[in-house]
């Protein structure tokens, strides 16, 4: 459905500043553009790949023990040599734990929470949105009013409320954020379903006797996946920030599982003496959220058929 229409439409022709005079030239330009887009997509995914690898491999290489403190080596600046002769590349924190190990450990938790939350919220949203869009009527009204109510409420406030009831643990953070984030996915899935179910191929499938489960599974859900993936990339960044906010407030991960937000929270009292404690995880957080956002942007361009042939 998203392949053929684009290049011949009026608006994309309007975008072209110099209309192609020769077919070969136009094809070459198109290829270059396509190539550039893929390159940009790849470039923005690089930091994400690096952080994902660091999160998986890092804690195995640089061991982090949340319990062990070395008070003699506390508040050492980045690059300092510690008492046992090792080097703290990102400095040490207020009780002498290595910041590099802590940031890597934090990457694992932040990325895990981001990915898991988007997965769960996406699944809830997909189910709710598809059902609402497909059946319409009362179910649609009920689910979408529920979504409206939830959207009217600041999502971080809702998250704080749920987190305060559930208590601090990584699983609870994922549950909390999934419950506050499903609405966006639900709305997008519903819109995609609404447009898909009126399409000729769906009507054709229905007239050939396809039942509801089959229609949903093979004809409607596949058409909602692409927009959901784009939304997911935007949401990952927001979720990581929401997790950091919760941990900053002491409602996120427990103390023995330091996420970036938590490390920033505990390091902020040391900003004037040991800036690196709050800055290092903050920097990592910014880089990941920025690249995920930019990657999502490029991915949307890439998947958008109208942008493709322009």
């Amino acid at each position, binding site marked *: 459905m998203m392949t053929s229409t684009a290049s011949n439409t009026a608006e994309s022709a309007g975008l072209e500043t110099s209309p192609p005079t020769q077919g070969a030239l136009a094809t070459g330009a198109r290829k270059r553009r396509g190539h550039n887009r893929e390159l940009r997509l790849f470039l923005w995914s690089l930091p994400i790949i690096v952080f994902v690898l660091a999160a998986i491999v890092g804690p195995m290489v640089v061991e982090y023990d949340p*319990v*062990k*403190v070395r*008070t*003699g080596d*506390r*508040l050492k600046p980045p690059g300092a040599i510690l008492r046992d002769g090792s080097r703290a590349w990102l400095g040490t924190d*207020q*009780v002498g734990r290595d910041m590099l190990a802590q940031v890597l450990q934090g990457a694992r938790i932040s990325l895990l929470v981001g990915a898991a939350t988007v997965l769960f919220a996406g699944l809830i949203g997909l189910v709710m949105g598809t059902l609402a869009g497909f059946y319409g009527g009362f179910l649609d009204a009920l689910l979408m009013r529920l979504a409206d109510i939830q959207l009217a409420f600041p999502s971080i406030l809702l998250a704080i409320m749920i987190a305060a009831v559930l208590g601090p643990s990584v699983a609870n953070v994922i549950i909390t954020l999934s419950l506050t984030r499903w609405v966006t996915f639900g709305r997008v899935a519903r819109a995609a379903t609404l447009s898909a179910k009126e399409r000729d191929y769906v009507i054709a499938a229905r007239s050939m006797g396809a039942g509801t489960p089959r229609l949903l599974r093979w004809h409607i859900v596949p058409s909602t996946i692409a927009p959901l993936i784009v939304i997911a990339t935007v949401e990952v960044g927001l979720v990581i920030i929401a997790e950091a906010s919760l941990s900053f407030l*002491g409602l996120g991960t427990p*103390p*023995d599982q330091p996420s970036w937000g938590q490390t920033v929270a*505990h390091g*902020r*009292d*040391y*900003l*004037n*003496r040991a800036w690196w404690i709050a800055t290092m995880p903050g920097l990592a957080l910014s880089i990941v959220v920025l690249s995920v956002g930019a990657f999502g942007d490029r991915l949307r361009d890439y998947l958008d058929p109208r942008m493709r042939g322009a």
Partner: protein
Amino acid sequence: MESPAQESGRRIYELVRRRREGTISRRAFVQAVTALGLSMPLAAMLERRGLAALQESAPSGEITIVLPRSLVALDPHGAQSVEEATAVISSHVFDTLVVRDAATGELQPRLATSWQAIDETTWEFKLREGVTWHDGTPFTSADVKASLERVQSLEGPLAPLWALVTEVQTPDDLTVIFKTSEPQGTIPVSAALFFVTPAAHSNDEGFFDNPIGIGPYKFVSWVRDSELRLEAIPDHWAGAPGVQTLVFRDIPEVSARVTALETGEIDFTFGLPADQLPALAENSELRIDSTPSYAYYFNWFNCSREPFTDARVRRAMAHALDLDTIVNDLLQGVGVRAQAPIPSTIFGFAPQTPYEYDPEKAKALLAEAGLENGFETHVIWNPGSGPQDRELVQAMISYWAEIGVTVESREMERAAWLDALLALDWDMDFQTNTVRTGDADFTLRRLYVSSANRTGYANPELDTILVEAAAAADPARRQELYAQACKIIWDDAVGIFPFELLENYVYRTRLTDFVPTPSAVPVFTSVKIAE
């Protein structure tokens, strides 16, 4: 020119440095610091006397103060009555019968002009004549009676001090008689903490949101979690305060508080972490008054819960901690190792044999108690309770892990923590505590008699000693009894008593005549603003 306070601050750092290098003994260090703390207010007073005489007596100007912890309630009798913030505001708005002199530790007349024990179970206080409440009503013995009954009925943390008082008699407007069921020598000391509130209004709904006081400052406004304002009473019976307006701002964030002090947005704060002090000491616009305090850290064990019912387990936990290293690395300038369940500044202090850092011995003790594989437990604590508290909890947990004990850190919001603490719903509790009266009775009897049931520890022998010590009139006898009590609590390891704290009051140099108090309840009536 260096002021005596700055000089003392400098000397304390010098002492701490020498202690770290090991060039002076711990005992010499504590003595030197104590001596400094005692001599400093005196020196400061002598220096400023000349200056003070020149100044006008009318209050003027405005100073902004930030307390280490937010004010929760103004009621000086209820659940919050031993909270520092409540006590600080109460010391200005309300008043006590007697007051402990910050420099000498002696009891001085305040709302009472004299007091005496008529017999073993009767204390008589003569009240000051001509004192009025801020609304103009005269202060009488009825106010004292109503306030005391209120303390008893609200059952707050101060109630145990008055538990033995069976009756308050008011033979005339200016005489109050406390009858006790048993002899009690500590009544005048306790009276220094007992704020009198007006009998006519104290039980009114919302009275403590807009209280009528009797102290040198009157209440103006309070916006919770933001700002509280007090205005001077120019014709107060004790003389006019030096500053017209006291503003108590709420800045819970330490770094924000320090910045505000450096920029001059606020004038005065205290209770800062050790890591903040060196930079502040170098700032010529600031002065640090450092004094040994009544405050100390403890880590209690819930002696009614397995495995802490076994004293060997409790001692093992104490032997697992390398307190010398912790105090050197984390508490420079704000703390020293404690030698008893009460700080060395307190009447009744008797030094005990320290628990040496010995992980092997700790493991052996655990094995003896049948816990050779260690165990899992938790510690509750409230962030902001004292300097470097988070770091201290982390450090202790790290040391306990070395002997196989896994401790979960349960960080709690203050109100929730207080509820859990009083309900005895914890395995271990880590906190600071202040012996507000400067007398061992306040801490030892209030917290450790079996009937108080604060730690689940019950020892009839200790109960007898503490009750007798409270009753005794002879200071030497009381000292002797408290020494025994200290030994029992220390040797049975009802808790670990790791550090006693120094109080560092940090303020802008435009403030003069501040008298540092060891009780962490600074009073600003003497303070003046230099031109």
